[in-house]
């Protein structure tokens, strides 16, 4: 009986990550395998562990059998895998500053949930869901605490809630239309239409940043790297000067490159806006001035900022709907992104997210992100394209399961050593 109780305590302790470990002060220095087990645990959970922990012993036993995958799975069952490692990776992707010193938010909750629930990671850019928590002292009013503020998620962090256990998936994203009223989002697209991502990139500006950062975070490519001066400029807005400082060549050789690809996709976000009252979409929010729950649009439902500063180059493109074209499909970018399916054009954010998520580059980017999160190193994409392609393919073969991607990359020789 005593043995059963002790065993249960060890198992429970290992699961919660709070096992009481009594150091073995008579023991020799840890073996190489024990050190490797500890390293693997620390990489996947982000948290250090006593070398005499039963978790290290269990992982070392798996490594001794040559079963690295089993060892990794021991680590990922620890809540800190989600609460620390996945959370920190997501925090960095969630805002414009790309810093981990960012409050917990709905974008991060979505990434943790999708990883924990072993969902297809492409849902992050296409799904109609969100994750929320619960508990004492957690403010949870849908409009006040989730849609027009970050109160709910900040409370989860302040109260040190175990996100791995507490977050619950809710189907159907919603938008606030009044102080106590919400309606279904007309164009849900995973974390792209989360309050945090929209708050970071749809606040003021011209909604171009939403395109730039979608590619930056989920394709691992900064705008300069996919700029294409040879692409058609027919979608470039009227607010872009074609004669900067009186020099058309400057536009042709510099400005145009970024705007051909960025403005091509920008139409996807033509009906979305964000201000202090949260996310707004012209299909559901009352059109008018940008006050409270109303949205400032033209008669087509296109938000005003899409066509602002129209006198700079009046012959430029006028956005009249949420259609977009993929100007990054030309040969100069084709090898970078390796688009799949219908990728030339579409309407709205969900279709935009689908095109991005189905590209081969998305899978490779997720592999790169995970490599950085667990191996704590940057990977030069250009120098390691073959490896990233292979890892991306493995990720896709797993059904786009992020948890498996973490487990797989953490034990790669490139990360853990041979």
């Amino acid at each position, binding site marked *: 009986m005593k043995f059963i109780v002790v065993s249960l305590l060890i198992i429970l302790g290992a699961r919660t*990550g*709070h096992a*009481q*470990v*009594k*150091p*073995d*002060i008579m*023991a*020799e*220095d*840890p073996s190489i395998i024990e*050190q490797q087990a*500890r*390293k693997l645990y*620390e*990489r996947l959970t*982000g*948290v*250090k*562990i*006593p*070398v*005499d922990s039963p978790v290290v012993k269990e992982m070392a036993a798996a490594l001794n059998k040559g079963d690295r995958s089993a060892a990794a799975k021991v680590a990922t069952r620890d809540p*800190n895998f989600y*609460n*620390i490692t996945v*959370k*920190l990776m997501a925090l960095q992707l969630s805002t414009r500053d790309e*810093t*981990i*010193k960012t409050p917990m938010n709905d974008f991060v909750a979505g990434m943790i949930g999708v990883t924990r629930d072993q969902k297809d990671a492409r849902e992050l850019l296409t799904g109609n869901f969100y994750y929320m928590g619960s508990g004492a002292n957690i403010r949870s009013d849908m409009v006040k605490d989730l849609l027009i503020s970050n109160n709910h998620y900040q409370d989860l962090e302040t109260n*040190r809630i175990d996100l791995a256990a507490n977050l619950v998936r809710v189907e159907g994203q919603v938008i606030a239309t009044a102080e106590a009223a919400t309606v279904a989002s007309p164009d849900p697209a995973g974390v792209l239409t989360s309050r945090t991502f929209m708050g970071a990139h749809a606040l003021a500006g011209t909604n171009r940043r939403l395109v730039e950062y979608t590619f930056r975070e989920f394709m691992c490519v900064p705008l300069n790297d996919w700029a294409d001066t040879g692409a058609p400029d027919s979608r470039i807005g009227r607010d872009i000067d074609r004669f900067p400082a009186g020099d058309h060549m400057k536009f042709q050789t510099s400005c145009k490159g970024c705007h051909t690809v960025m403005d091509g996709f920008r139409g996807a976000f033509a009906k979305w806006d964000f201000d202090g009252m949260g996310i707004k979409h012209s299909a559901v929010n009352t059109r008018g001035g940008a006050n409270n729950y109303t949205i400032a649009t033209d008669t087509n439902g296109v938000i005003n900022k899409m066509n602002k500063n129209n006198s700079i180059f009046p012959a430029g493109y006028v956005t009249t709907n949420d259609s977009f074209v993929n100007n990054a499909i030309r040969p100069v970018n084709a090898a970078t992104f390796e688009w799949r399916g219908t990728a030339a054009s579409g309407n709205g954010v969900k279709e935009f997210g689908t095109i991005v998520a189905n590209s081969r580059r998305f899978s490779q980017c997720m592999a790169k992100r995970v490599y950085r999160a667990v191996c*704590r*190193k940057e990977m030069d994409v250009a120098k390691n394209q073959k490896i990233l392609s292979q890892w991306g393919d493995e990720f896709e073969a797993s059904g786009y399961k992020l948890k498996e991607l973490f487990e797989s990359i953490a034990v790669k020789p490139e990360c853990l050593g041979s």
Partner: protein
Amino acid sequence: MKIVKTLTLWIPISALLVVGFNNCGQSNFESSLDLSSLGIQNDEMDSEKLGLPYALLSAEQTLNSMLSVTNVGTANTAIINEYNTRYGALAGGNDLSMANSPVMLGSTSLAGEVCNSLVTAEKAATAETRNFFGSVDFAVSVGSITDSGFNSSVRGMARSFWGRNETADELSFLQEYKLEFIAALTGTALTQVASTSNLITATCAAMLSSLDAISY
């Protein structure tokens, strides 16, 4: 208040200890050291391959690691308050070049609170059931702590905080620190049993905030 007074004594000492316990770590944290004589170009240096620390724990990782390796588990109000106060100073990423003075001092302060919680819990337990300080009698004055009792505590903390046994140099350094700690006490502080707890707390904080404990 007592812990604040204690901090004034051991934070400066701990700060010195912090930079001492980096195992094989160099005083220059990143690739600024010249390894060309070994045939290794600086721009190619991979500190992990060389057995050196290769990444720093970020703020949240630092807190959770300290709670994990000390068995404290759940942060109390004092720890959370200290963490919130020091949050800005703790690392905002894993880049080893972020290891600067504010990070080290912030880690030391946080470690002080975590160790205070650990020592409080261990003192409340019987010697046989303690995880780290079973060989320390907290009911006697600091001068009564035996070398073997002190060394056993160091060994336990080294295995948990650093994942290895302490080296002879590190043990010698800590023993020297113990002697200096006791030598610095005057009057009633020399005989108060609180000094025993202070020595153990300070030693714990120094080890818990050393580079080996806050780096990968």
